[in-house]
């Protein structure tokens, strides 16, 4: 009995040694940050960090759907592996962005994150993802400082497929000046996005020769805007730009019509409230209001097919302006993974984290729905084309930007 056992033990020992010594080109990870190994039957994991609940849920739902369509276009597969898409609700604020980042970055197999929607959520989240070596591509953070040439080194894993607000704010200012407005006021809600966007607008407007009569601010959850609007009215502006979010934006739009001196001021917002949900919140007061937003008519030819797929899959029109940017962000990531992944004969994938980030930054002339994407060394990849849209119908069900020249909201510039 004892003999049999010893023999068996010897046999096991020898066979393990034989296996270990078998001649085989084993993958050696030389990546600076490390590699992710995906076994033959394991999926490729991509996560989202978006706002999918609350007043701004339209923003996150819209981008999430963009990614889902991009995955569907590949039949859910990449390099023979299933793509697993999951994620966290980041609530469009700093705390939510940070919590989501901590939770997602604990996943050792996670390759890339698509998000966040809101720049405020991005700021604390970026260093967490970068520390974990996870690539991050945002479809809708537009605040200028996230891709500033002087951005901190700990932002090295962050890119975005949407425009920088340096472009959006300036275009709105040029529009206002061109249309003969001489006096403008602005309002932000303390978020990084709104604050920087109104600042860019104000600087460009002053440069063109206009006068900024007031730069006000409110809280994102404030409801009584009339005192603030009364203050703005006292400075007699002709144009009022408040690039904020849906809840407070809806209140300002409604109450501006009720404050003496503001009835005839031209109201304008930005892409954060470019949504049928905003019409729900603002009601009839939204009629005549302006938005700066990506120019849908300048999108590539595939956009109309995308819209058809969207309508077929979700039974409605896109809810916010960033679905196409999200679609492009997902495809950029897929292309970069295809470029850097090393495949073993048994189907195991090895992906270097730094290599993936480098491949994303090397994106050049990438044909996306939103144009030709080329990433600069600071993570700006978009091909920004900004248009000004006007609300010609306050009914949220009529929302269909970019369908044809007369649809609601209507593109009026350029």
């Amino acid at each position, binding site marked *: 009995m004892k003999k049999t056992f010893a023999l068996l033990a010897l046999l096991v020992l020898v066979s393990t040694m034989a296996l270990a010594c078998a001649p085989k080109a084993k993958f050696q990870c030389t990546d600076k940050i490390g590699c992710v190994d995906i076994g033959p039957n394991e999926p490729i994991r991509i996560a989202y960090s978006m706002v999918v*609940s*609350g*007043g701004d*849920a*339209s923003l996150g739902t819209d981008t999430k759907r963009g990614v889902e369509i991009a995955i569907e276009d590949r039949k859910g597969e990449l390099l023979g592996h299933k793509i697993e898409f999951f994620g966290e609700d980041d609530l469009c604020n700093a705390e939510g962005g940070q919590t989501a980042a901590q939770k997602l970055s604990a996943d050792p197999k996670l390759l890339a994150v698509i998000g966040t929607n809101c720049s405020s959520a991005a700021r604390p989240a970026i260093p967490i993802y970068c520390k974990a070596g996870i690539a991050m591509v945002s479809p809708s953070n537009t605040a200028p400082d996230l891709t500033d040439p002087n951005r901190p080194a700990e932002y090295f894993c962050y890119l975005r497929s949407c425009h920088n607000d340096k472009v959006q704010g300036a275009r709105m200012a040029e529009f206002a000046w061109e249309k003969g407005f001489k006096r403008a006021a602005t309002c*932000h809600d*303390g978020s990084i996005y709104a604050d920087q966007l109104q600042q860019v607008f104000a600087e460009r407007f002053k440069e063109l020769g206009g006068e900024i009569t007031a*730069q*006000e*601010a*409110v*809280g994102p*959850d*404030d*409801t*009584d805007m*009339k*005192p*603030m609007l*009364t*203050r703005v009215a*006292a400075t007699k502006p002709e144009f009022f730009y408040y690039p904020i979010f*849906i*809840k407070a934006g*809806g*209140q300002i739009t*409604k109450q501006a019509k*009720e404050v*003496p001196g503001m009835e005839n001021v031209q109201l304008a917002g930005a892409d954060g409230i470019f949504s049928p*949900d905003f019409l*729900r*919140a*603002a*009601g*009839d007061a939204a009629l005549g209001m302006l938005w700066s937003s990506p120019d849908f008519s300048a999108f590539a030819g595939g956009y109309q097919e995308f819209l058809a797929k969207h309508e077929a899959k979700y039974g409605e029109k896109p809810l916010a302006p960033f679905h196409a940017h999200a679609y492009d962000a997902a495809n950029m990531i897929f292309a970069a993974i295809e470029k850097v992944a090393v495949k073993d004969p048994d189907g195991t994938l090895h992906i270097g984290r730094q290599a993936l980030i480098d491949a994303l930054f090397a994106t050049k002339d990438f044909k996306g729905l939103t144009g030709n994407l080329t990433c600069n060394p600071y993570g700006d990849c978009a091909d920004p084309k900004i248009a000004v849209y006007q609300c010609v119908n306050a009914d949220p069900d009529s929302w269909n930007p970019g369908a044809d020249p007369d649809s609601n909201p209507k593109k009026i510039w350029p």
Partner: protein
Amino acid sequence: MLYRLRRKISGTTVFMWIIGLGILAMVVVGSAQTLASGRYPSDQWLVLTIYGVAQGSVYALIALGYTMVYGILRMINFAHSEVFMSGPFIGYYVATALDEAGFLDRQPVIGLGIVLLAAMATSTTIAVLLERIAYRPLRRAPRLVPLITAIGASFFLQYTFRGLFGSGVKGYPEIDQLKGYWLIPGTQFGVLKTQGVVIVAAVIMLVGLYLFVQRTKTGKSLQAVSEDKDIAALMGIDVDRAIVITFIIGGALAGAAGVLYALLFRQVNFFMGFFPGIKAFTAAVLGGIGNVVGAMLGGLFLGIAESLFPNLVLDGLGIPAPYQLKDALAFILLVVVLIFRPTGILGERLAAKKA
């Protein structure tokens, strides 16, 4: 004499007084500079005050719910903000239905009455259920227990509404007859009709409640229970009934406040109760928690402070975009009031009685 005074005033008290006086000095200097600059016409201050009164009367109605429950049960009913939210939420569906039928524009008074009744009924039901299910079994438990239960109930209600009706913001229908202004005689400014209606409705309810508590037999039984539950029971007062009545009144006022709030801001959302709830709780503390008139005064004071003071005080101090800081300013004022009157504006009588 001097020795006793010195013993009563500790170092902390002096320190707090210095902080309080510093803030008061800031308020005075800021206001003086703004007024001296003459940048804003006097009419504008009047308009800002009216905005504040409209907002404040809504706070006052919610604050009554906090203060009455505290007076009778010695607990902060943190779920009250959800009682406030539930009313206009159901009211929204009634109002939309009436609006689509055209009834709201043809018969605005009756229509609004129906919406108000629906909202008050909903809020009252929820308040009574809360008392029965969440608070009554815990009445003899340590004080912290019902407090935690209240917070739990608040989350439960919020997310139940979110689950049932979605998380988006819904726009309340607008009543045609309530568009526009009533002009204030002698000025070029008007009072928004919605604000006028809100102020009048709130005043009627506040006066009604005051008379009810002071003059009727039931009201007196509430007072008795709030003074001492056990002795009130010995005197033949049904304590359970008195407590339920308190929740009914608090719920009905919160539901009404919700509709008034929705009239002013025309938006409902599952999370809408949170901030007004916190503000109303502040108002209740400001006025002296447990005191009915105090809650009314506290609400009005807070509303006016939020609307008027950023422009009046912070503008003079040269702070840009002052309305961003209106909550901070409101809470600083709360600190000042509590430094000089730790029991709130009208809290003293109550404190003496309870001591």
